[in-house]
């Protein structure tokens, strides 16, 4: 096979996967395995313990039967919430995984000097850096969503068995209203949008990784914190005032993405997606496609993208021209 521009980029992505297999794939699989194990253990414990207390009736069955009290037209939303809710911990962990991946992306190979090997091959530094950006912001989330999907399948099978034992119609209450495929594709789409939303954060981490001669974590974290202190100090003197809050901008960027579900932080409140509660309970699923893609129409999205692009360009420049050998 002769290498072409596209196949060599694919090879660079593969390289990132090889190196980070543990955090990109084994870790989310392990979390899912842990979930399933705990669920089965709890169910086993519950079924015996409650059975003994109750004497005759299988109480677990009664607990599961609670689903029958959910109005039929809300079952789909309930399942969406369950599926999204059970994945929340993944998204939180992934945020840290990706951040630390980017911190090491252009640093680790300089520390162990293997960058001299990578640099001996005909790959531009632009391509190398972009492959790392894509690996962290798209490939890793994709693999994590696949792992989440596997966990969901296992959990839904467990639920189906429980329903069967509890005389609840499985299709009517589970496989009919639940739409895991929609939830998974929604998560993938949300991560696609998230990749743009987080570009300034990831770009900044990549820049710190390229720049730092040691301690990339400090280089990534200290400047924004120092800037915040300066901001606090300036606002405290009251000579100057801003029509925005630095901490709100920062917090909104870090936590206000669209994954797992859209969070938007306003002055006093945090709104979770389009989730709306009224007297009938939850009426709309948080897996709202339209609101996720609305991000592309917002100016702060594109300011962030612009900042991210500048950071990445600077990282590529440093990677190419600084003499680290």
């Amino acid at each position: 096979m002769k290498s072409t521009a596209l196949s060599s980029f694919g090879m660079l992505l593969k390289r990132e996967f090889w190196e980070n297999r543990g955090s990109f794939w084994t870790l989310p699989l392990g979390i899912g395995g842990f979930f399933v194990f705990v669920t089965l253990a709890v169910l086993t414990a519950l079924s015996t313990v409650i059975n003994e207390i109750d004497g005759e009736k299988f109480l677990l069955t009664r607990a599961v039967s609670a689903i029958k009290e959910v109005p039929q037209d809300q079952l789909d939303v309930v399942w969406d919430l369950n599926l999204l809710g059970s994945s929340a911990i993944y998204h939180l962990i992934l945020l840290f995984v990706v951040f630390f991946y980017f911190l090491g992306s252009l640093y680790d190979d300089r520390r162990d000097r293997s960058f001299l090997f990578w640099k001996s091959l005909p790959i531009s530094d632009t391509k190398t850096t972009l492959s790392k950006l894509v690996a962290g912001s798209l490939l890793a989330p994709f693999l994590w969503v696949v792992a989440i999907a596997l966990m969901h399948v296992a959990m839904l099978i467990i639920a189906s068995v429980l329903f069967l034992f509890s005389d609840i119609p499985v299709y009517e209450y589970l496989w009919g209203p639940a739409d895991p495929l929609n939830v998974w594709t929604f998560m993938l789409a949300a991560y696609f949008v998230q990749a743009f939303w987080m570009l300034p954060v990831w770009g900044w981490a990549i820049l710190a990784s390229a720049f730092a001669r040691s301690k990339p974590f400090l280089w990534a974290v200290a400047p924004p914190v120092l800037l915040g202190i300066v901001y606090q100090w300036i606002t405290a003197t009251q000579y100057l005032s801003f029509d925005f809050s630095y901490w709100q901008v920062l917090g909104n960027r870090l936590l206000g993405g669209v994954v797992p579900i859209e969070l938007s932080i306003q002055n006093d409140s945090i709104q979770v997606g389009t989730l709306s509660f009224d007297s009938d309970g939850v009426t709309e699923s948080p897996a709202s496609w339209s609101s996720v893609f609305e991000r592309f129409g917002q100016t702060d999205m594109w300011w962030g993208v612009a900042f991210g692009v500048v950071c990445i360009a600077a990282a590529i420049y440093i990677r190419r021209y600084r003499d680290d050998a």
Partner: protein
Amino acid sequence: MSAIVNANGLRKKYKSSVALDNVSFQIEPGRIVGLIGPNGAGKTTALKAMLGLTSFDGELSILGMDPMKQRHELMDQVCFIADVAVLPRWLKVHQAVDFVEGVHPRFSRERALGFLSKTKIKPESKVKELSKGMIAQLHLALVMSIDAKLLVLDEPTLGLDIIYRKEFYSNLLNDYFDEERTIIITTHQVEEVEHILTDLMFIKDGKIIIDASMEDIAERFVEVMVAPESADEARALNPIHERSVFGKFVFLYDNADQLALAELGELHNPSIADLFVATMKDEAA
């Protein structure tokens, strides 16, 4: 065919030292050049400049390309082993082969697997599980499977034991080198490369003090072993270095009258190591 490397007035300054001081040289195709000098003489800086890894002043073209501006095109034609054991520790052997195949248009998988099959390296092993000698074997196998015009080796055998070192150079010579290719080697272990070199460049304090083919070196430099009673006579002929061996003196001459020397004792060619010691010593000594 034009020169592979063309350097003209190459300069590189670090904060406290001058690594390259107005250096000019050419390297023709089909040569194996030894770039020899003490630590801090500028060898590595010169190689890094050629590989586009460091900035410099002056003119330098490699295969007609500017190593700073056209670095990644240049890497199609140029291979290097910049240091011993710089292969990433997490990489598996078969992944290394797959990777280089995937990104390098001039890499031959068959050749690499052929070289590796002659070693004890297992395809499933990670680099961190290999000995330093095996890592060097792996790196060399990868590099020799790339059809490159120029191969640059910077201390490729440092820290390896003698068996691996000998094997490294014999593989390079037997399985890789031909009249189309050019190899530049820097090393401290001069005695091990001297039989494979076609050209020698001595670099000292950022300057090139000898740049000649091995044939020229053999003609220019001669050693004479002289009995103590003729020592003063020998000194009168301006040796560049003298040392004593078993009560006799060995004098080293550059461009001396060989007929006159022959009367003092037996002539022979100095080893590169002797030449190195003689030329690298400070003039005052």
